[in-house]
């Protein structure tokens, strides 16, 4: 079998006119400029915008709850705690939004771009995912309080099994929200990591990735603890 001369292919590549077959007109390019980006960054930015809007609505809804249950100190405390929590989470989400890697100035090299994207998603994004998932229990709690008000005009005395059911609903809502989000982006982030590892020839990133995964686990444990403590507080306030 004869040896392959890649220079022949290089010349063929240079002379090939088939690449020029489809030249877009100015109008067609202008149309493209008005379309939405499908990049992971744009999807994340959209998700974050929706969550910020949702948390704002939740904040207003808890103000409504305080107003409706003005004579019930327990619900007022619950409403204030929820609003403080929503405001803190909103601040975090807005800061995260501002830190999303900008597409305006592409970094000088592919390696730097991959590194900045991976660092952002692994360090900042995973915290943000849990904060997004926190909306679910908050929606459940506010919905439950509105239901009690419009159905009974007060918070009905709850039994221990009621608390168990409500707590389970909150935990499932949180866990499901976080699971869906993490699953949605994990695959894409892993692909970026594979590219970075390829650039670094499987050498320097092994330790970095291990460190980032450890941090992810720590964040997960912290958020679960916060959720459980929050539910215990809720039980104490309402009982």
């Amino acid at each position, binding site marked *: 079998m004869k040896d392959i001369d890649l220079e022949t292919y290089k010349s063929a*590549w240079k002379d090939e006119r088939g690449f020029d077959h489809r030249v877009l007109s100015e109008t067609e390019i202008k149309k493209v*400029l008005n379309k939405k*980006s499908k990049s992971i960054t744009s999807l994340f930015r959209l998700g974050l915008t929706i969550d910020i809007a949702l948390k704002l609505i939740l904040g207003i809804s808890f103000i409504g709850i305080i107003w409706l249950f003005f004579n019930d100190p327990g619900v007022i405390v619950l409403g204030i705690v929820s609003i403080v929590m929503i405001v803190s989470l909103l601040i975090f989400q807005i800061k995260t939004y501002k830190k999303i890697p900008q597409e305006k*100035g592409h970094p000088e090299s592919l*390696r730097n*771009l*991959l590194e900045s994207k991976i660092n952002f998603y692994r360090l900042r994004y995973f915290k943000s995912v849990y904060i997004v998932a926190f909306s679910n229990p908050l929606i459940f709690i506010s919905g439950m309080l509105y239901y009690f008000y419009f159905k009974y005009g007060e918070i009905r005395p709850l039994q221990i099994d009621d608390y168990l059911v409500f707590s389970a609903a909150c935990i499932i809502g949180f866990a499901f929200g976080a699971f869906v989000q993490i699953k949605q982006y994990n695959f894409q982030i892993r692909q970026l990591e594979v590219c970075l590892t*390829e650039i670094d020839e499987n050498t320097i990133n092994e330790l970095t990735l291990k460190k980032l995964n450890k941090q992810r686990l720590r964040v997960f444990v912290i958020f679960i603890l916060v959720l459980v403590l929050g539910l215990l507080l809720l039980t104490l306030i309402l009982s």
Partner: protein
Amino acid sequence: MDKSQREKEFLDSIKAHQNIIHKICFVYCRRKSDKEDLYQEIILQLWKSYPSFNNRSAFSTWMYRVALNTAITMTKKNWLFTETDKLPDISAENENMMELSEEIRILFKAISQLEKVEKAIILLWLEEKSYEEIAETIGITVKNVSVRLVRIKAKLADTIKKLQ
């Protein structure tokens, strides 16, 4: 420079260098619809990054950088950008391939066997970019570029030999 002037300048530059984007889409995508998706995404990213283009490098060099960054970091959950052991089905997925010369079709088949970053390096080599430019675009050393090119070329030659 006002917005309409900037847009006009951008559109003119894109029109003059469209074949670069076609080549990148050709190397990174198999299906026509995926090529169109990537094509649009590259144009969008170029437009977003255009304010950062400062004429220090040639427009084409800057364009390669942004377009390759987009092609490599644009990930999807479906099969679109995942690697496959199977050779692309030319008849079903690359209707435009028939317009290309035999050498280019063989080259495409061989390149499709490479990893994403390897594709970027060989594409820049085919485009006659210097080792310095390749190193700068990818973010590796010049020495590393030369070592990797030797390896990628050997891999490519081996695949082409099998395909002939």
